[in-house]
Protein backbone atom coordinates (compact mmCIF):
# COMPACT_ATOMS: atom_id res chain seq x y z
CA UNK A 1 0.00 0.00 0.00
CA UNK A 2 2.59 2.47 1.07
CA UNK A 3 4.83 1.37 -1.76
CA UNK A 4 2.11 2.10 -4.26
CA UNK A 5 1.59 5.52 -2.85
CA UNK A 6 5.24 6.37 -3.15
CA UNK A 7 5.45 5.38 -6.81
CA UNK A 8 2.33 7.39 -7.48
CA UNK A 9 3.98 10.38 -5.88
CA UNK A 10 7.05 9.90 -8.00
CA UNK A 11 4.98 9.70 -11.16
CA UNK A 12 3.16 12.91 -10.35
CA UNK A 13 6.32 14.79 -9.61
CA UNK A 14 7.41 16.18 -13.03
CA UNK A 15 4.01 17.70 -13.82
CA UNK A 16 3.67 19.09 -10.34
CA UNK A 17 7.11 20.54 -10.54
CA UNK A 18 6.32 22.32 -13.81
CA UNK A 19 3.25 23.92 -12.26
CA UNK A 20 5.14 25.07 -9.20
CA UNK A 21 7.84 26.46 -11.51
CA UNK A 22 5.21 28.52 -13.34
CA UNK A 23 3.95 29.89 -10.05
CA UNK A 24 7.48 30.61 -8.93
CA UNK A 25 8.28 32.65 -12.02
CA UNK A 26 4.93 34.41 -11.87
CA UNK A 27 5.62 35.38 -8.27
CA UNK A 28 9.14 36.54 -9.02
CA UNK A 29 8.02 38.62 -12.01
CA UNK A 30 5.27 40.34 -10.04
CA UNK A 31 7.72 40.92 -7.18
CA UNK A 32 10.23 42.58 -9.49
CA UNK A 33 7.60 44.70 -11.26
CA UNK A 34 6.14 46.00 -8.01
CA UNK A 35 9.56 46.63 -6.47
CA UNK A 36 10.90 48.45 -9.49
CA UNK A 37 7.74 50.45 -10.16
CA UNK A 38 8.60 53.48 -7.97
CA UNK A 39 12.08 53.55 -9.53
CA UNK A 40 10.56 53.47 -12.99
CA UNK A 41 8.34 56.39 -11.98
CA UNK A 42 11.27 58.27 -10.49
CA UNK A 43 13.50 57.91 -13.54
CA UNK A 44 10.87 58.33 -16.25
CA UNK A 45 9.02 61.27 -14.70
CA UNK A 46 12.41 62.87 -14.20
CA UNK A 47 12.58 63.04 -18.00
CA UNK A 48 9.26 64.84 -18.45
CA UNK A 49 8.47 68.48 -18.98
CA UNK A 50 6.35 70.14 -16.31
CA UNK A 51 3.33 69.97 -18.62
CA UNK A 52 3.94 66.32 -19.47
CA UNK A 53 3.78 65.38 -15.78
CA UNK A 54 0.06 66.10 -15.88
CA UNK A 55 -0.54 63.94 -18.95
CA UNK A 56 -1.93 60.44 -18.81
CA UNK A 57 0.89 58.91 -20.85
CA UNK A 58 2.76 56.11 -19.16
CA UNK A 59 6.02 57.11 -20.84
CA UNK A 60 7.30 60.67 -21.36
CA UNK A 61 6.06 62.19 -24.65
CA UNK A 62 9.49 63.72 -25.02
CA UNK A 63 12.59 62.55 -23.13
CA UNK A 64 14.08 65.69 -21.61
CA UNK A 65 17.67 64.96 -20.70
CA UNK A 66 18.03 68.61 -19.83
CA UNK A 67 16.12 67.99 -16.54
CA UNK A 68 18.97 65.85 -15.26
CA UNK A 69 21.43 68.39 -16.56
CA UNK A 70 19.45 71.19 -14.95
CA UNK A 71 19.55 69.80 -11.40
CA UNK A 72 23.33 69.45 -11.66
CA UNK A 73 24.38 72.64 -13.40
CA UNK A 74 21.74 75.37 -13.05
CA UNK A 75 21.95 78.02 -10.34
CA UNK A 76 19.85 75.61 -8.28
CA UNK A 77 22.41 72.83 -8.54
CA UNK A 78 22.28 69.91 -6.11
CA UNK A 79 26.00 69.21 -6.45
CA UNK A 80 26.74 71.05 -3.23
CA UNK A 81 24.21 68.91 -1.36
CA UNK A 82 25.69 65.75 -2.84
CA UNK A 83 29.16 66.83 -1.71
CA UNK A 84 27.81 67.64 1.76
CA UNK A 85 26.27 64.17 1.93
CA UNK A 86 29.55 62.56 0.92
CA UNK A 87 31.38 64.59 3.57
CA UNK A 88 28.88 63.90 6.35
CA UNK A 89 28.48 60.21 5.55
CA UNK A 90 32.25 59.68 5.24
CA UNK A 91 32.91 61.51 8.50
CA UNK A 92 30.25 59.54 10.35
CA UNK A 93 31.53 56.26 8.91
CA UNK A 94 35.13 57.07 9.83
CA UNK A 95 34.31 57.93 13.43
CA UNK A 96 31.93 55.00 13.85
CA UNK A 97 34.55 52.55 12.58
CA UNK A 98 37.48 54.04 14.50
CA UNK A 99 35.51 53.81 17.74
CA UNK A 100 33.96 50.48 16.77
CA UNK A 101 37.10 48.48 15.94
CA UNK A 102 38.70 48.53 19.42
CA UNK A 103 35.36 47.92 21.11
CA UNK A 104 34.55 45.01 18.81
CA UNK A 105 38.05 43.64 19.41
CA UNK A 106 37.60 43.74 23.17
CA UNK A 107 34.23 42.01 22.90
CA UNK A 108 35.50 39.33 20.54
CA UNK A 109 38.89 38.57 22.06
CA UNK A 110 38.95 39.52 25.73
CA UNK A 111 37.19 38.41 28.88
CA UNK A 112 36.23 41.05 31.38
CA UNK A 113 33.48 41.93 33.80
CA UNK A 114 30.91 44.30 32.39
CA UNK A 115 30.86 42.73 28.93
CA UNK A 116 27.15 42.05 29.28
CA UNK A 117 26.56 45.62 30.45
CA UNK A 118 28.28 47.03 27.40
CA UNK A 119 26.21 44.79 25.15
CA UNK A 120 23.09 46.03 26.93
CA UNK A 121 24.16 49.64 26.36
CA UNK A 122 24.45 48.88 22.67
CA UNK A 123 20.98 47.38 22.56
CA UNK A 124 19.45 50.31 24.45
CA UNK A 125 21.13 52.76 22.09
CA UNK A 126 19.19 51.07 19.31
CA UNK A 127 15.88 51.39 21.15
CA UNK A 128 15.93 55.11 20.59
CA UNK A 129 15.69 56.63 17.23
CA UNK A 130 17.24 60.07 16.92
CA UNK A 131 13.72 61.38 16.32
CA UNK A 132 12.47 60.37 19.74
CA UNK A 133 15.51 62.08 21.23
CA UNK A 134 15.32 65.17 19.01
CA UNK A 135 14.60 67.48 21.91
CA UNK A 136 17.49 66.10 23.93
CA UNK A 137 19.90 65.98 21.01
CA UNK A 138 19.17 69.58 20.20
CA UNK A 139 19.98 70.61 23.79
CA UNK A 140 23.24 68.68 23.80
CA UNK A 141 24.35 70.12 20.46
CA UNK A 142 23.50 73.62 21.66
CA UNK A 143 25.55 73.04 24.81
CA UNK A 144 28.58 72.01 22.77
CA UNK A 145 28.02 74.77 20.21
CA UNK A 146 27.44 72.15 17.53
CA UNK A 147 23.93 73.12 16.47
CA UNK A 148 23.58 73.83 12.76
CA UNK A 149 27.00 72.31 12.08
CA UNK A 150 27.92 69.37 9.92
CA UNK A 151 30.27 68.10 12.62
CA UNK A 152 27.37 67.78 15.05
CA UNK A 153 25.45 65.79 12.47
CA UNK A 154 28.49 63.57 11.86
CA UNK A 155 28.78 62.79 15.58
CA UNK A 156 25.09 61.88 15.88
CA UNK A 157 25.14 59.68 12.78
CA UNK A 158 28.28 57.99 14.09
CA UNK A 159 26.78 57.42 17.54
CA UNK A 160 23.50 55.98 16.29
CA UNK A 161 25.39 53.63 13.97
CA UNK A 162 27.83 52.60 16.67
CA UNK A 163 25.69 49.59 17.51
CA UNK A 164 25.90 48.32 13.92
CA UNK A 165 29.63 48.95 13.78
CA UNK A 166 30.33 47.03 16.99
CA UNK A 167 27.83 44.31 16.15
CA UNK A 168 29.07 43.64 12.61
CA UNK A 169 32.76 43.97 13.45
CA UNK A 170 32.72 41.69 16.46
CA UNK A 171 30.93 39.10 14.35
CA UNK A 172 33.69 39.40 11.77
CA UNK A 173 36.46 39.18 14.36
CA UNK A 174 34.90 36.11 15.97
CA UNK A 175 34.80 34.42 12.61
CA UNK A 176 38.60 34.71 12.42
CA UNK A 177 40.65 32.25 14.42
CA UNK A 178 42.85 34.01 17.02
CA UNK A 179 45.78 31.65 16.36
CA UNK A 180 47.44 33.91 13.81
CA UNK A 181 47.42 36.83 16.24
CA UNK A 182 48.75 34.63 19.05
CA UNK A 183 51.56 33.47 16.78
CA UNK A 184 52.45 37.05 15.93
CA UNK A 185 52.51 37.91 19.65
CA UNK A 186 54.97 35.09 20.26
CA UNK A 187 57.08 36.47 17.42
CA UNK A 188 57.31 39.73 19.35
CA UNK A 189 54.45 41.85 18.05
CA UNK A 190 52.67 44.09 20.53
CA UNK A 191 48.93 43.69 20.83
CA UNK A 192 48.42 46.79 18.69
CA UNK A 193 50.64 45.38 15.96
CA UNK A 194 48.89 42.02 16.08
CA UNK A 195 45.64 43.89 15.47
CA UNK A 196 46.74 46.25 12.72
CA UNK A 197 49.06 43.85 10.89
CA UNK A 198 47.31 40.51 11.34
CA UNK A 199 43.66 40.82 12.35
CA UNK A 200 42.51 43.86 10.37
CA UNK A 201 43.83 42.72 6.97
CA UNK A 202 42.13 39.37 7.49
CA UNK A 203 38.92 41.10 8.53
CA UNK A 204 38.98 43.47 5.55
CA UNK A 205 35.86 42.10 3.80
CA UNK A 206 33.79 42.44 6.98
CA UNK A 207 35.18 45.90 7.64
CA UNK A 208 34.34 47.06 4.11
CA UNK A 209 30.80 45.72 4.51
CA UNK A 210 30.43 47.63 7.77
CA UNK A 211 31.89 50.80 6.25
CA UNK A 212 29.50 50.77 3.33
CA UNK A 213 26.49 49.92 5.48
CA UNK A 214 27.10 52.86 7.83
CA UNK A 215 27.87 55.14 4.90
CA UNK A 216 24.51 54.31 3.35
CA UNK A 217 22.67 54.79 6.65
CA UNK A 218 24.26 58.19 7.12
CA UNK A 219 23.69 59.13 3.48
CA UNK A 220 19.97 58.32 3.77
CA UNK A 221 19.49 60.01 7.15
CA UNK A 222 16.85 62.69 6.94
CA UNK A 223 15.23 63.63 10.21
CA UNK A 224 18.17 64.93 12.25
CA UNK A 225 19.57 66.87 9.32
CA UNK A 226 16.12 68.30 8.62
CA UNK A 227 15.78 69.61 12.17
CA UNK A 228 19.38 70.53 13.01
CA UNK A 229 20.76 72.04 9.82
CA UNK A 230 19.18 75.34 8.87
CA UNK A 231 22.12 76.68 6.88
CA UNK A 232 21.44 75.89 3.23
CA UNK A 233 25.17 75.57 2.53
CA UNK A 234 25.46 72.60 4.92
CA UNK A 235 22.37 70.59 3.97
CA UNK A 236 22.80 67.00 2.82
CA UNK A 237 21.00 65.80 -0.31
CA UNK A 238 18.01 64.24 1.50
CA UNK A 239 17.12 67.66 2.88
CA UNK A 240 18.47 69.80 0.04
CA UNK A 241 16.20 68.07 -2.43
CA UNK A 242 13.30 70.04 -0.96
CA UNK A 243 14.56 72.87 -3.13
CA UNK A 244 12.15 71.57 -5.78
CA UNK A 245 9.34 71.04 -3.30
CA UNK A 246 8.04 74.59 -3.39
CA UNK A 247 5.38 76.18 -1.24
CA UNK A 248 2.90 76.55 -4.10
CA UNK A 249 3.91 73.79 -6.43
CA UNK A 250 6.18 70.79 -6.53
CA UNK A 251 8.52 70.54 -9.53
CA UNK A 252 8.13 66.78 -9.73
CA UNK A 253 10.42 66.39 -12.75
CA UNK A 254 13.34 68.15 -11.08
CA UNK A 255 12.61 66.53 -7.73
CA UNK A 256 12.76 63.08 -9.34
CA UNK A 257 15.84 63.84 -11.42
CA UNK A 258 17.60 64.93 -8.22
CA UNK A 259 16.26 61.84 -6.41
CA UNK A 260 17.85 59.62 -9.03
CA UNK A 261 21.25 61.15 -8.27
CA UNK A 262 20.64 60.66 -4.55
CA UNK A 263 19.51 57.05 -4.94
CA UNK A 264 21.42 55.20 -7.64
CA UNK A 265 24.95 55.39 -6.14
CA UNK A 266 23.87 53.99 -2.78
CA UNK A 267 21.73 51.28 -4.33
CA UNK A 268 24.75 50.08 -6.29
CA UNK A 269 26.93 50.20 -3.17
CA UNK A 270 24.31 48.25 -1.28
CA UNK A 271 24.09 45.52 -3.88
CA UNK A 272 27.83 45.04 -3.51
CA UNK A 273 27.61 44.27 0.21
CA UNK A 274 24.19 42.65 0.47
CA UNK A 275 25.50 39.08 0.78
CA UNK A 276 28.06 39.78 3.51
CA UNK A 277 25.86 42.19 5.36
CA UNK A 278 22.94 39.90 6.00
CA UNK A 279 24.97 37.02 7.35
CA UNK A 280 26.82 39.55 9.53
CA UNK A 281 23.65 41.14 10.91
CA UNK A 282 22.02 37.88 11.86
CA UNK A 283 25.06 35.97 13.06
CA UNK A 284 27.06 38.76 14.76
CA UNK A 285 25.51 38.12 18.12
CA UNK A 286 24.69 34.46 17.82
CA UNK A 287 28.10 33.04 17.10
CA UNK A 288 30.25 32.32 20.09
Amino acid at each position, binding site marked *: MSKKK*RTEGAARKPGQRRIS*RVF*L*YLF*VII*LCLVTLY*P*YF*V*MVSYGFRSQADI*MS*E*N*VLPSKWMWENYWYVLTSNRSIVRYLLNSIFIASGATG*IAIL*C*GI*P*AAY*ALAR*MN*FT*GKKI*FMAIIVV*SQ*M*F*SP*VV*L*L*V*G*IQRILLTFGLNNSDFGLI*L*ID*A*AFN*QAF*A*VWLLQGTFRGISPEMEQASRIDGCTRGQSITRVLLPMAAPGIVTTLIFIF*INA*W*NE*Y*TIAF*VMISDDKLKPI*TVGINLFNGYNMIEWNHL*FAASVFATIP*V*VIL*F*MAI*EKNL*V*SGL*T*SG*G*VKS
Partner: protein
Amino acid sequence: MKREEKAKKKRGVRQVLTPYLYLLPSFLLMVLMVFLPIITVFYRSMQKFSKAGKIKGYAGFDNFDKVLGSSKFMGVFQNTVIWTLAVVLISTLIGIIIGMVLNTEFRGRKLVRAVVVFPWATSLIIQASVWKFIINTDHGALNALLLKLGLIDSARNFTSSPAAWFAWEIWVGIFVTVPFVSFCTLSGLQSIDSALYEAASIDGANFTQKTFRITLPLIKPSLTVATVLNIIYVFNSFPIIWAMTKGDPASKTDTLVTYLYKLAFINGENGQAAAVSVLSFLFLCIVSAIYMAWYGKGGDNA
Protein backbone atom coordinates in the same frame (compact mmCIF):
# COMPACT_ATOMS: atom_id res chain seq x y z
CA MET B 1 62.16 39.95 44.37
CA LYS B 2 59.94 42.73 45.64
CA ARG B 3 60.47 44.78 42.53
CA GLU B 4 59.54 41.83 40.41
CA GLU B 5 56.30 41.43 42.32
CA LYS B 6 55.49 45.08 41.89
CA ALA B 7 56.08 44.86 38.18
CA LYS B 8 53.87 41.82 38.01
CA LYS B 9 51.12 43.64 39.88
CA LYS B 10 51.47 46.61 37.55
CA ARG B 11 51.19 44.39 34.53
CA GLY B 12 48.15 42.77 36.13
CA VAL B 13 46.41 46.11 36.59
CA ARG B 14 47.15 47.00 33.00
CA GLN B 15 45.77 43.68 31.83
CA VAL B 16 42.57 44.30 33.73
CA LEU B 17 42.23 47.83 32.40
CA THR B 18 43.02 47.10 28.74
CA PRO B 19 39.54 45.93 27.67
CA TYR B 20 37.97 49.04 29.16
CA LEU B 21 40.45 51.27 27.33
CA TYR B 22 39.45 49.54 24.11
CA LEU B 23 35.78 50.17 24.85
CA LEU B 24 36.31 53.79 25.85
CA PRO B 25 35.98 55.61 22.48
CA SER B 26 32.84 53.70 21.57
CA PHE B 27 31.44 54.20 25.06
CA LEU B 28 32.17 57.94 25.08
CA LEU B 29 30.56 58.45 21.69
CA MET B 30 27.39 56.72 22.79
CA VAL B 31 27.29 58.45 26.17
CA LEU B 32 27.69 61.90 24.60
CA MET B 33 25.33 61.57 21.68
CA VAL B 34 22.81 58.95 22.84
CA PHE B 35 22.71 58.75 26.62
CA LEU B 36 23.10 62.43 27.48
CA PRO B 37 20.13 63.20 25.20
CA ILE B 38 18.18 60.39 26.91
CA ILE B 39 18.86 61.88 30.34
CA THR B 40 18.04 65.36 29.02
CA VAL B 41 14.71 64.13 27.66
CA PHE B 42 13.79 62.43 30.96
CA TYR B 43 14.81 65.55 32.91
CA ARG B 44 12.93 67.94 30.65
CA SER B 45 9.79 65.84 30.77
CA MET B 46 9.44 66.91 34.41
CA GLN B 47 10.15 70.61 33.99
CA LYS B 48 8.02 73.68 33.45
CA PHE B 49 8.90 75.87 30.48
CA SER B 50 8.40 79.53 29.65
CA LYS B 51 6.99 80.57 26.29
CA ALA B 52 10.55 81.18 25.09
CA GLY B 53 11.52 77.61 25.96
CA LYS B 54 13.47 78.39 29.16
CA ILE B 55 13.17 75.99 32.08
CA LYS B 56 11.06 77.53 34.87
CA GLY B 57 11.19 74.80 37.48
CA TYR B 58 10.03 71.37 38.54
CA ALA B 59 6.67 70.33 37.12
CA GLY B 60 6.23 66.83 38.52
CA PHE B 61 4.04 64.82 36.22
CA ASP B 62 2.15 67.84 34.85
CA ASN B 63 3.51 67.34 31.33
CA PHE B 64 2.46 63.71 31.36
CA ASP B 65 -0.99 64.67 32.61
CA LYS B 66 -1.35 67.19 29.81
CA VAL B 67 -0.16 64.76 27.15
CA LEU B 68 -2.36 61.90 28.34
CA GLY B 69 -5.32 64.25 28.87
CA SER B 70 -5.10 65.69 25.37
CA SER B 71 -8.00 64.75 23.11
CA LYS B 72 -5.60 63.84 20.32
CA PHE B 73 -3.28 61.55 22.25
CA MET B 74 -5.36 58.38 22.32
CA GLY B 75 -5.93 58.57 18.56
CA VAL B 76 -2.24 59.12 17.92
CA PHE B 77 -1.32 56.25 20.21
CA GLN B 78 -3.80 53.99 18.45
CA ASN B 79 -2.35 54.99 15.08
CA THR B 80 1.12 54.13 16.32
CA VAL B 81 0.05 50.67 17.43
CA ILE B 82 -1.77 50.00 14.15
CA TRP B 83 1.16 51.35 12.13
CA THR B 84 3.75 49.25 13.95
CA LEU B 85 1.69 46.06 14.09
CA ALA B 86 0.53 46.22 10.48
CA VAL B 87 3.91 47.06 8.99
CA VAL B 88 5.91 44.57 11.06
CA LEU B 89 3.43 41.69 10.78
CA ILE B 90 2.69 41.98 7.07
CA SER B 91 6.28 42.63 6.03
CA THR B 92 7.44 39.67 8.13
CA LEU B 93 4.95 37.38 6.37
CA ILE B 94 5.81 38.66 2.90
CA GLY B 95 9.51 38.72 3.73
CA ILE B 96 9.53 35.07 4.82
CA ILE B 97 7.84 34.04 1.57
CA ILE B 98 10.27 36.07 -0.55
CA GLY B 99 13.22 34.71 1.42
CA MET B 100 12.04 31.14 0.78
CA VAL B 101 11.54 31.86 -2.92
CA LEU B 102 14.99 33.41 -3.19
CA ASN B 103 16.43 30.28 -1.58
CA THR B 104 15.21 28.03 -4.40
CA GLU B 105 17.24 27.63 -7.56
CA PHE B 106 15.85 29.40 -10.62
CA ARG B 107 17.18 31.29 -13.60
CA GLY B 108 17.78 34.97 -12.87
CA ARG B 109 17.95 34.51 -9.11
CA LYS B 110 20.94 36.83 -8.74
CA LEU B 111 19.10 39.55 -10.63
CA VAL B 112 16.01 39.19 -8.45
CA ARG B 113 18.13 39.37 -5.29
CA ALA B 114 19.64 42.62 -6.57
CA VAL B 115 16.18 44.04 -7.30
CA VAL B 116 14.83 43.14 -3.88
CA VAL B 117 17.64 45.14 -2.29
CA PHE B 118 16.49 48.42 -3.87
CA PRO B 119 13.96 49.62 -1.27
CA TRP B 120 16.36 48.83 1.57
CA ALA B 121 19.04 51.09 0.11
CA THR B 122 16.78 54.01 -0.75
CA SER B 123 16.27 57.00 1.48
CA LEU B 124 12.84 56.79 3.13
CA ILE B 125 12.06 60.41 2.40
CA ILE B 126 12.65 59.89 -1.33
CA GLN B 127 10.75 56.60 -1.42
CA ALA B 128 7.78 58.24 0.33
CA SER B 129 7.83 61.27 -1.99
CA VAL B 130 7.71 59.03 -5.04
CA TRP B 131 4.73 57.11 -3.64
CA LYS B 132 2.97 60.35 -2.78
CA PHE B 133 3.24 61.25 -6.44
CA ILE B 134 2.22 57.78 -7.65
CA ILE B 135 -1.10 57.84 -5.81
CA ASN B 136 -1.91 61.46 -6.66
CA THR B 137 -5.46 61.79 -8.04
CA ASP B 138 -4.94 64.50 -10.64
CA HIS B 139 -1.73 63.48 -12.32
CA GLY B 140 -0.44 60.45 -10.42
CA ALA B 141 1.45 57.69 -12.15
CA LEU B 142 -0.81 54.92 -10.86
CA ASN B 143 -3.92 56.48 -12.40
CA ALA B 144 -2.07 56.96 -15.68
CA LEU B 145 -0.94 53.34 -15.64
CA LEU B 146 -4.34 51.87 -14.74
CA LEU B 147 -6.06 54.01 -17.37
CA LYS B 148 -3.61 52.82 -20.00
CA LEU B 149 -4.13 49.20 -19.02
CA GLY B 150 -7.88 49.77 -19.24
CA LEU B 151 -8.46 48.68 -15.64
CA ILE B 152 -10.29 51.92 -14.81
CA ASP B 153 -11.98 54.42 -17.10
CA SER B 154 -11.57 57.60 -15.12
CA ALA B 155 -8.96 58.76 -12.62
CA ARG B 156 -9.61 57.38 -9.14
CA ASN B 157 -9.11 59.16 -5.87
CA PHE B 158 -6.96 56.71 -3.92
CA THR B 159 -6.75 58.97 -0.90
CA SER B 160 -10.30 60.06 -0.24
CA SER B 161 -10.04 59.85 3.55
CA PRO B 162 -7.40 60.08 6.29
CA ALA B 163 -7.76 56.32 6.74
CA ALA B 164 -6.92 55.80 3.06
CA TRP B 165 -3.83 57.98 3.42
CA PHE B 166 -2.81 56.03 6.48
CA ALA B 167 -3.27 52.74 4.63
CA TRP B 168 -0.97 53.98 1.86
CA GLU B 169 1.59 55.02 4.44
CA ILE B 170 1.43 51.50 5.86
CA TRP B 171 1.91 50.14 2.35
CA VAL B 172 5.09 52.22 1.89
CA GLY B 173 6.27 51.10 5.34
CA ILE B 174 5.81 47.47 4.29
CA PHE B 175 7.49 48.15 0.97
CA VAL B 176 10.68 49.39 2.61
CA THR B 177 10.71 46.82 5.45
CA VAL B 178 10.23 43.64 3.40
CA PRO B 179 13.81 43.45 1.98
CA PHE B 180 15.37 43.30 5.46
CA VAL B 181 13.12 40.41 6.53
CA SER B 182 13.64 38.64 3.19
CA PHE B 183 17.39 38.70 3.52
CA CYS B 184 17.39 37.70 7.17
CA THR B 185 15.19 34.74 6.25
CA LEU B 186 17.45 33.92 3.34
CA SER B 187 20.58 33.96 5.49
CA GLY B 188 18.86 31.74 8.04
CA LEU B 189 17.77 29.33 5.30
CA GLN B 190 21.20 29.07 3.78
CA SER B 191 22.63 27.82 7.03
CA ILE B 192 20.18 24.88 7.10
CA ASP B 193 21.66 21.52 6.16
CA SER B 194 19.87 20.24 3.05
CA ALA B 195 20.24 16.68 4.38
CA LEU B 196 17.42 17.51 6.80
CA TYR B 197 15.02 18.07 3.91
CA GLU B 198 16.16 14.92 2.14
CA ALA B 199 15.59 12.88 5.27
CA ALA B 200 12.16 14.45 5.69
CA SER B 201 11.26 13.73 2.05
CA ILE B 202 12.25 10.10 2.43
CA ASP B 203 10.00 9.90 5.48
CA GLY B 204 7.18 11.22 3.30
CA ALA B 205 6.91 14.79 4.61
CA ASN B 206 5.13 17.22 2.28
CA PHE B 207 6.01 20.83 1.61
CA THR B 208 3.80 22.24 4.38
CA GLN B 209 5.21 19.84 6.95
CA LYS B 210 8.75 20.67 5.92
CA THR B 211 8.04 24.37 6.12
CA PHE B 212 6.51 24.28 9.60
CA ARG B 213 8.64 21.52 11.12
CA ILE B 214 12.06 22.34 9.67
CA THR B 215 12.28 25.71 7.94
CA LEU B 216 10.48 28.03 10.34
CA PRO B 217 11.94 26.63 13.59
CA LEU B 218 15.45 26.84 12.18
CA ILE B 219 15.21 30.40 10.89
CA LYS B 220 13.63 31.55 14.14
CA PRO B 221 16.85 32.93 15.65
CA SER B 222 17.57 35.21 12.70
CA LEU B 223 13.93 36.25 12.53
CA THR B 224 13.80 37.13 16.24
CA VAL B 225 16.62 39.62 15.81
CA ALA B 226 15.06 40.99 12.64
CA THR B 227 11.63 41.41 14.21
CA VAL B 228 12.85 43.17 17.34
CA LEU B 229 14.86 45.59 15.20
CA ASN B 230 11.85 46.11 12.94
CA ILE B 231 9.52 46.85 15.84
CA ILE B 232 11.93 49.53 17.02
CA TYR B 233 12.56 51.05 13.59
CA VAL B 234 8.98 51.04 12.40
CA PHE B 235 7.72 52.48 15.67
CA ASN B 236 10.30 55.25 15.42
CA SER B 237 9.89 55.93 11.73
CA PHE B 238 9.35 59.57 10.86
CA PRO B 239 10.05 60.28 7.16
CA ILE B 240 7.28 58.23 5.51
CA ILE B 241 4.42 59.85 7.39
CA TRP B 242 6.07 63.24 7.31
CA ALA B 243 6.55 63.19 3.55
CA MET B 244 3.08 61.90 2.74
CA THR B 245 0.67 63.63 5.12
CA LYS B 246 2.63 65.37 7.89
CA GLY B 247 0.19 63.58 10.21
CA ASP B 248 -2.69 65.73 8.94
CA PRO B 249 -5.59 66.25 8.88
CA ALA B 250 -6.03 67.00 12.59
CA SER B 251 -3.51 64.36 13.73
CA LYS B 252 -5.61 61.63 12.10
CA THR B 253 -2.49 60.12 10.49
CA ASP B 254 0.01 61.12 13.20
CA THR B 255 2.07 58.54 15.02
CA LEU B 256 3.84 59.35 18.29
CA VAL B 257 7.01 60.43 16.49
CA THR B 258 5.41 62.95 14.14
CA TYR B 259 3.18 64.14 16.98
CA LEU B 260 6.25 64.63 19.14
CA TYR B 261 8.00 66.57 16.39
CA LYS B 262 5.05 68.93 16.03
CA LEU B 263 4.77 69.45 19.79
CA ALA B 264 8.44 70.35 20.04
CA PHE B 265 9.20 72.27 16.90
CA ILE B 266 5.89 73.71 15.74
CA ASN B 267 3.84 74.25 18.92
CA GLY B 268 6.87 74.89 21.15
CA GLU B 269 5.57 72.57 23.89
CA ASN B 270 8.99 71.47 25.14
CA GLY B 271 7.85 69.72 28.29
CA GLN B 272 5.05 67.79 26.64
CA ALA B 273 7.30 66.76 23.74
CA ALA B 274 9.82 65.36 26.22
CA ALA B 275 7.00 63.54 28.00
CA VAL B 276 5.92 61.92 24.73
CA SER B 277 9.55 60.82 24.18
CA VAL B 278 9.62 59.16 27.59
CA LEU B 279 6.25 57.47 27.04
CA SER B 280 7.36 56.19 23.62
CA PHE B 281 10.52 54.76 25.10
CA LEU B 282 8.71 53.02 27.95
CA PHE B 283 6.15 51.60 25.54
CA LEU B 284 8.88 50.31 23.23
CA CYS B 285 10.73 48.71 26.16
CA ILE B 286 7.60 46.90 27.29
CA VAL B 287 6.72 45.67 23.81
CA SER B 288 10.26 44.44 23.08
CA ALA B 289 10.47 42.71 26.45
CA ILE B 290 7.13 40.96 25.94
CA TYR B 291 8.10 39.92 22.44
CA MET B 292 11.48 38.54 23.55
CA ALA B 293 9.94 36.70 26.49
CA TRP B 294 7.15 35.25 24.39
CA TYR B 295 9.35 34.35 21.47
CA GLY B 296 12.35 33.22 23.46
CA LYS B 297 10.25 30.64 25.33
CA GLY B 298 11.14 28.07 22.71
CA GLY B 299 14.53 27.80 24.41
CA ASP B 300 16.65 29.44 21.72
CA ASN B 301 19.87 31.10 22.66
CA ALA B 302 19.55 33.91 20.14
